[in-house]
């Protein structure tokens, strides 16, 4: 169990560092980094606080503490993936609307030029 927590701690720190570096280099926008930062910090805190994890395991009735950690991490990332699907759908709609608008404006400019 302890080794699993150590691995989780390391992975959380790596994720945190990756996100911060990406934000600094403008590879990821700040508003989209918040979810990742929160997820990384949550995983870090959980991996460093075994008593909290044990309490959650007892409270939820999950048979095993590592399973609790796995389920929580899985839930966090599922929610994040869903959030990004929503964002992608918005972007796709905006992108289509923009491409159509550009085409229509180009069409009208061309029509004016021909008159």
């Amino acid at each position, binding site marked *: 169990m302890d080794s699993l927590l150590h691995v989780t701690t390391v992975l959380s720190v790596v994720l945190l560092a990756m996100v911060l570096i990406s934000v600094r280099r403008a590879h990821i926008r700040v508003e989209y980094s918040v979810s990742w930062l929160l997820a990384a910090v949550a995983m870090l805190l959980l991996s460093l606080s075994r008593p909290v994890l044990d309490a959650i395991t007892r409270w939820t009735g999950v048979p095993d503490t590592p399973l609790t950690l796995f389920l929580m991490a899985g839930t966090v990332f599922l929610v994040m993936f869903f959030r990004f699907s929503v964002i992608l759908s918005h972007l796709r709609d905006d992108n289509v609307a923009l491409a*159509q608008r550009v*085409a229509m404006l180009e069409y009208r400019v061309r029509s004016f030029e021909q008159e």
Partner: protein
Amino acid sequence: MKPASATDALLVIVPALNEEGAIAEVVSQIRRHVPGVPVLVIDDCSADGTIAVARAAGADVLPLAHHLGLGGCVQAGYKLAFELGFQYVIRVDGDGQHDAADIPAILERLKSTGCEMVIGSRFVEKNGSSAGMVRGLGIRFFRMVLRPILGKPVHDPTSGFVGVNRRALEVFSRSFPLEYPEIEALVVLQRRRFRFEEVPVKMRPRMAGRSSITAGKSLYYIVHVLLGVFVNILKYDGRPRPGSGG
């Protein structure tokens, strides 16, 4: 193409992707059968000479900046037609499968019935048109699915040979399925209690090029459209986003 002023102004739109081999004949046939009616080819970012050939044939061309798929392509035409004030729009595919000789019948039905959409159907009367085995099975399947949803039978739900009036144009300008739009568009109209009719048309094999729906994509097509139909039934219209893809 100038903004429409007549109260019965018709625009024929032709979505096209890499239809260099067929588009000139398609445009010429439309101009021959409905002379004086503007023809708008919406080019979905073709890699060949579709735009130049269409212009040379006498069509106006709306070239999209990047590939949007059939639904986004058709919706761009609907948006422009709506902004320019057209009362009726008839869509003819750029591959030459639709016979422009049927356009007057579709327009006449739109005007005489006042219904929002008229579908050119291969199967409302037996006229020798066929859809191929796989597509035929898909059409039968979607007929069964759509019958209770639409409250009346639709014989050719996958037909892209479709005419709409200004009320449908307004709805489709705001909300139109981006991929495989024909079947979902019927459900979009049904949500507004709009009416549709079918007129018999003949369809031909493609003049050139290849269909985007290959045998391998058929299953994806069925799942995608089925999901789209049910999502459209359940859809909440409270806060539509601009440019929402339907």
